């Protein structure tokens, strides 16, 4: 019995077995969502980055992590004028909103939200925040409002994996959840000295 178990574990650890498992999962997922409209087909599959993250339980090896960072960094589209800061008040509204991309959200009735508060603490006033992500309270203040940090914030929101490979955070820009303008508004919420995230109001 132990011998069989040992073989099973050895097998489970081989890439071939993992591949077989993930092929079975692809088939099962395809069959599990028969109501999906044709243009939703990409939602059922995982791209290379997600495959690597799923297979490593989000702890990729150093090499894989570097490959992911490089690949995801390349997806980032920057604002044409290199101005990364929008309107923090609009940023606060989209941080509150979880609207968008659910099958009940079609046809769209409003802009997609970023749903930041689902996982992050931001302003002091909003006490209903999640803890899946780190607290972003005083985010800009802690970074001395430096221009480099403003750009890095834009990049993290656009594609979190460029900074943190296998981050749990959605690739809000790369996956077209938020527009460039919306991401700038979210950057302002985090990085503007007037934003309540930094004033503590």
């Amino acid at each position, binding site marked *: 019995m132990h011998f069989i178990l040992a073989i099973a574990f050895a097998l489970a650890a081989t890439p071939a077995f993992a591949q077989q*498992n*993930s092929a*079975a*999962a692809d088939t*099962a*997922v395809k*069959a*599990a*969502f*028969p*109501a*999906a*409209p044709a243009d*939703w087909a990409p*939602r*059922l*599959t*995982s791209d290379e980055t*997600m495959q690597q*993250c*799923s297979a490593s*339980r*989000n702890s990729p090896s150093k090499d894989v992590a570097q490959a992911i960072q490089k690949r995801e960094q390349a997806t980032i589209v920057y604002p044409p004028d290199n101005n990364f800061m929008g309107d923090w008040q609009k940023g606060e509204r989209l941080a509150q909103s979880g609207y968008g*991309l*659910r*099958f*009940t959200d079609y046809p769209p009735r409003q802009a997609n939200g970023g749903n930041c*508060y*689902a*996982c992050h603490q931001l302003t002091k006033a*909003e*006490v*209903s*925040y*999640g*803890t*899946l992500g780190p607290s972003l309270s005083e985010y800009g203040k802690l970074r001395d409002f430096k221009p480099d940090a403003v750009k890095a914030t834009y990049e993290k929101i656009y594609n979190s994996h460029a900074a943190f490979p296998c981050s*749990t955070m*959605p*690739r809000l820009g790369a*996956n*077209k*959840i938020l527009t460039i303008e919306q991401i700038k508004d979210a950057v302002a919420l985090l990085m503007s000295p007037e934003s309540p995230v930094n004033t503590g109001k």
Partner: protein
Amino acid sequence: MQQTGLRAAGRSGASNTTTESRRIFREAQVRRLGLFVALAIALAPAALAQDAETEKAIEKYRAMLREDPWSNPGFLDADRGEALWTTKGGPKNASFEQCDLGKGPGKVEGAFAELPRYFADTNRVMDLETRLLWCRETLQGLSTADYVKRPHPGSGAPVKEIGAIATYVASKSAGQKFAAKLDAPQEREVLALGETLFNRRSGPFDFACATCHANSGLRIRLQGLPWLAEKKEASKVVGEWPAYRVSTTHVMTMQHRLFDCYWQMRMPELQMGSDASVALIAFLTKQAEGGEIAAPGLKR
């Protein structure tokens, strides 16, 4: 309500009027508190203090239910399910009474504790709801394909037929421990699939079940998230489904729970009874092995 009352009386052996009226009073009390909790949730501004109040109220509600478990409103659906189990229907004018949930035709007691399992007659591993759909089709002659077009109730509506029967069947394993063996080759394959799916990231948000359920003590907004990748936490919560949800004042089943998770994950509508849904339920049940079944449970 009357049905619940009759059953409660039967269970405790209480037949004299004093006990009966005390029990009715207590049930009314529990229902009023339930209404308060539901209202508190519906009206709650997103505020921590309010939320703590709501949590406290739900905890008080749970404590009252522990004293008198039969006053959980979920039992109304269990009763409805029990009636549906014995009601003839469909083109074949048959009831569910010959349905084999794994322990032989008509054997309901303890059946849920051993599900999901491999069934030779369908050559498939099936969870409770998927098996009930199959019984409905084979015994009553009613189409599963039609049922799964709208398998779950809309908001404000009570749990549908299969969900009510599932609540009844699950309640007949309450107090027992999850003991699905899941060791047959077909079952092991389904378990492996379930684990892969639990960790598989996809969709525009790149979410997997593990995105929210692979750590302890975390929350979305103020809603706590169970750590389902860990056996100890999984065994505390999985056995509470199907559960009466105070926020909707209705019972929700495990298949519906997964459907809702995938909705939030920005995935399409999860097909009830699909292999993926069965595999995830098998994985969760295995994670909860040894945990006590407390269905219908009470959820926010």
